[in-house]
């Protein structure tokens, strides 16, 4: 190898890190769009099965309500939901404060079990029914059992293969996001906006539960036991050979600022019985931040709500999907930029959700008319 090798630019390391976060987010969104397109072809939007959950506890949207009623109902639903999430987050903060780490880890494994076993099983059954795949119950049960068991181990153990853990986290995100797209339309959009605002408040305000959680974790130098996606850290080896003295300088890892905060949070999902109403679920949202080795950590809640937005856009048309995908990626890029700038825990939802919602409504109301007219007049396809 040549002595005077061209040193790797910052693009190689920073670009690689960004790609390692953007790829799983994109895969998650793609899978949710795919599932929405495949499984929802027969059911119309207004007759969507109203899943009685905590997100629709205040108001169940029907197709015949007036515009104003729907708005009020959706607002009420999202306020209830955000209130429940706030309580859940404070509960987790309390548990973490009293060092109930084992309980939290056990709860993570349990929620992974519920999501993968019940919701994954339901969605597999939907697909089997739609495509009439002749699988017998024994094979189905064995496959589901395997899938769930390894997933629970991946969520529970911190030292599983990185690829396996990441894949299972993405799958959990996909399943939960698909379930969220089954909510009524107005409630979904209002919920996204409310959660973006909650995220902003919880991470940046001094009394925000997420901020307190992160500060507690930093002060104790512990990791919060949570379902969080951690990108594989990029290690940059940079050698610059000084032509005069023939020195080579090494920068072994690029971000060893161990003071960079961990921003984690949890997704906890409780299902009492699958046929029954999903009566209670407690959510906590995840944040974006820097892990101790300089790896970027993005919360699973961010994955989920990005995918919910894109899934909802898919229920209208693919044009909105493309617009919202680009908006979310732009938002994520801006958030990563701010993260590099401020080097503290930042909320990943607000910018992306704001841009995504804006682009969705602009596309639906303005762009679609334009593009359809252009296509009809053979100007642009």
């Amino acid at each position, binding site marked *: 190898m040549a002595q005077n090798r061209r040193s790797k630019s910052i693009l190689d390391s920073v670009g690689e890190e960004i790609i390692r976060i953007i790829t799983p987010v994109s895969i998650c969104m793609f899978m949710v769009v795919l599932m929405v397109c495949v499984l929802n072809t027969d059911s119309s939007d207004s007759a969507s099965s109203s899943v009685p959950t905590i997100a629709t506890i205040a108001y169940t949207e029907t197709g015949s309500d007036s515009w104003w009623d729907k708005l009020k109902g959706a607002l009420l639903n999202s306020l209830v939901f955000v209130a429940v999430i706030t309580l859940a987050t404070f509960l987790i903060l309390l548990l973490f404060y009293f060092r109930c780490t084992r309980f939290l880890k056990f709860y993570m494994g349990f929620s992974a079990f519920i999501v993968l076993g019940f919701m994954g099983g339901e969605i597999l059954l939907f697909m089997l029914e739609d495509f009439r795949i002749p699988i017998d119950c024994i094979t189905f049960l064995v496959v589901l059992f395997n899938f769930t068991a390894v997933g629970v181990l991946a969520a529970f153990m911190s030292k599983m293969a*990185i690829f396996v853990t990441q894949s299972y986290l993405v799958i959990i995100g996909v399943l939960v996001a698909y379930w969220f797209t089954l909510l009524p339309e107005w409630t979904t959009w209002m919920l996204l906006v409310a959660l973006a605002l909650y995220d902003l408040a919880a991470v940046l305000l001094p009394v925000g539960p997420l901020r307190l959680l992160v500060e507690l974790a930093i002060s104790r130098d512990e990791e919060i036991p949570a379902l969080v996606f951690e990108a594989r850290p990029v290690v940059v080896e940079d050698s610059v050979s000084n032509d005069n003295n023939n020195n080579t300088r090494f920068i072994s890892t690029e971000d060893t600022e161990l003071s960079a905060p961990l921003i984690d949070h949890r997704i906890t999902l409780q299902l009492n019985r699958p*046929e029954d109403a999903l009566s209670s679920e407690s959510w906590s949202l995840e944040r974006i931040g820097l892990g101790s080795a300089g790896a970027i950590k993005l919360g699973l809640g961010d994955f989920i709500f990005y995918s919910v937005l894109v899934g909802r856009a898919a229920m209208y048309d693919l044009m909105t999907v493309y617009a919202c995908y680009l908006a979310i990626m732009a938002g994520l890029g801006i958030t990563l930029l701010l993260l590099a700038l401020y080097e503290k825990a930042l909320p990943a939802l607000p910018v992306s959700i704001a841009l995504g919602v804006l682009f969705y409504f602009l596309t639906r109301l303005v762009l679609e008319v334009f593009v359809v007219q252009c296509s009809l007049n053979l100007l642009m396809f």
Partner: protein
Amino acid sequence: MEASQSEVNPNPNPNPNTNNNVNRNSIMSSAPLWPTIDGPLGLTEEESLSYSRRFYKFGYALLPWLWAVNCFYFWPALRHPSSFPRIRRYVVGSAIGFTVFTALLCSWALTFAVGGEDLFGPVWEKLVMYNLADRLGLTGWS
């Protein structure tokens, strides 16, 4: 100089970008240093032994996928026959177990799918999953 360092001694400046790092090492030194596929981000050898053994034992609870994950995780031990002899025992056992179980399961599933009612008679309708789901109302949660 930097390049040769990375080939002979990956410890100070490991490059986990490539999972094949240990394979590249093996070309030079014919013995991977890290038993897991994650390289330096993974487990040490002692931890690997206990993990591998636990995965192997738990796989007997009708979990061939766990055996497959075991093989994937400790791929360097499988790939290089001379390295990590203690771990290799469990990984090879997992590989054999996974192959056997998958072969059995696939043959049963294919027999069921292809044979259909001709082979099984009325029991087929009772065993097939979509009928079972309808009957038990498993997808009636919404």
